[in-house]
């Protein structure tokens, strides 16, 4: 299940051993997120989601769209009191802390960035949920969790940084207990090649800006989930929402350019450039954004009961 590498970044990764690749990700993926959190707070929503929002209307503001996304993830996961939740690539704690504030679950987040860990922990404290929140700097493949010890695993905008997908899904399949669920929200390539995956723009976003990214096909990811013993419950396309989200972030970069430059010279241009590549990719659908929900055994939530958007889709 390892088809021909689609990009230079992926080809280079296949030249490394699994251990080398893990070390590589630890270094290069963390680098982007180690930038001063103050910068990201000027660009993202107040909870610092570095992932798509869900817009009912393209004119909606970013906060509203991100709040809707948090609520949607919460509804999909249906976390019950005492359930154990693992957020892989938890960032500054956007989803994790929202879920901690809105449920009685017990949370463990992992990130490769110490800056993100510190922000997430400080916010957990400030928002009164620190007693149920643990954040570690850890690579997913180094997690030592007992089989069947976790109820929910969340990957929001993070699995794209993980080359060794087979190992990641196998791990999720093992640590989930029956009734468990996994939610992935990330970026995929359409199976039919659209756009130039060997372009300078692709290399720029996957390597120069974000360290390491591996986009695979949706069906490949779903197959890996199924091979890990899980059942796919729900998939939705959020591509158009990401295009709008990115446009909002770019506007925020523009508005705060001088302040960002004062903190990290050159970083506002890098953000605007990679975000523009991403926005155009989603607008042209040369890359797609999906939210995937899968369960171990029978699902306890029913997608038929989830509220559908009021009004026209964004």
């Amino acid at each position, binding site marked *: 299940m390892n088809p021909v590498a689609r990009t230079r970044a992926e080809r280079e990764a296949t030249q490394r051993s699994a251990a080398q690749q893990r070390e590589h990700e630890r270094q290069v993926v963390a680098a982007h997120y180690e930038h001063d959190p103050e910068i990201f707070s000027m660009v993202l929503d107040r909870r610092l989601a570095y992932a798509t929002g869900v817009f009912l209307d393209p004119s909606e503001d970013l906060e509203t769209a991100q709040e809707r996304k948090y609520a949607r993830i919460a509804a999909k996961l249906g976390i019950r009191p005492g359930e154990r939740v693992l957020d892989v690539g938890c960032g500054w704690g956007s989803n994790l802390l929202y879920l901690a504030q809105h449920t009685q679950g017990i949370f463990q987040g992992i990130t490769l960035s110490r800056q993100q860990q510190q922000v997430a922990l400080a916010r957990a404290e400030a928002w009164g949920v620190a007693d149920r929140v643990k954040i570690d700097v850890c690579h997913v493949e180094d997690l030592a969790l007992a089989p069947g010890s976790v109820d929910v695993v969340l990957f929001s905008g993070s699995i794209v940084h993980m080359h060794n997908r087979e190992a990641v899904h196998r791990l999720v399949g093992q640590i989930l207990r029956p009734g468990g669920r996994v939610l992935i929200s990330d970026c995929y390539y359409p199976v039919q090649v659209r756009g130039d995956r060997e*372009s*300078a*723009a692709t290399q*720029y976003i996957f390597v120069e800006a974000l360290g390491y990214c591996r986009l695979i096909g949706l069906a490949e990811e779903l197959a890996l989930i199924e091979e890990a013993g899980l059942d796919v419950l729900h998939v939705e396309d959020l591509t158009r929402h990401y295009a709008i989200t990115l446009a909002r972030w770019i506007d925020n970069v*523009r508005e705060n*350019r001088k302040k960002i430059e004062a903190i990290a010279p050159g970083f*506002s*241009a890098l953000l*605007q*450039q990679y975000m*523009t*590549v991403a926005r*155009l990719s989603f*607008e042209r659908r040369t890359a797609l954004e999906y939210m995937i929900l899968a369960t171990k055994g029978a699902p306890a939530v029913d997608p038929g009961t989830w509220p559908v958007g009021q009004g026209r889709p964004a």
Partner: protein
Amino acid sequence: MESIAARVRAEIAADLRQPVEQVPLDARIDAVELGIDSLGLIKLSVRLEEIFEVTMPDLAADPQAIGSVRDVARLIADQVELRGAGGAA
């Protein structure tokens, strides 16, 4: 407008590592003529935004719609002028 056009030409020339003379004002900025790829156009837009404190349309999304080096300079000049008028009011 002349000084803006000169700066835009200089920026493109620097990108392409070419003398300014190789970037005529009438050259279309899309890939075929000058040899700027889509990432190059995105980087150029961002740099022009930084230099002139303007908001550029997506050169990479639809370079056809922008046209020539001169058109890009005019677009910037219009915004700079508008800002000047606003500032004086």
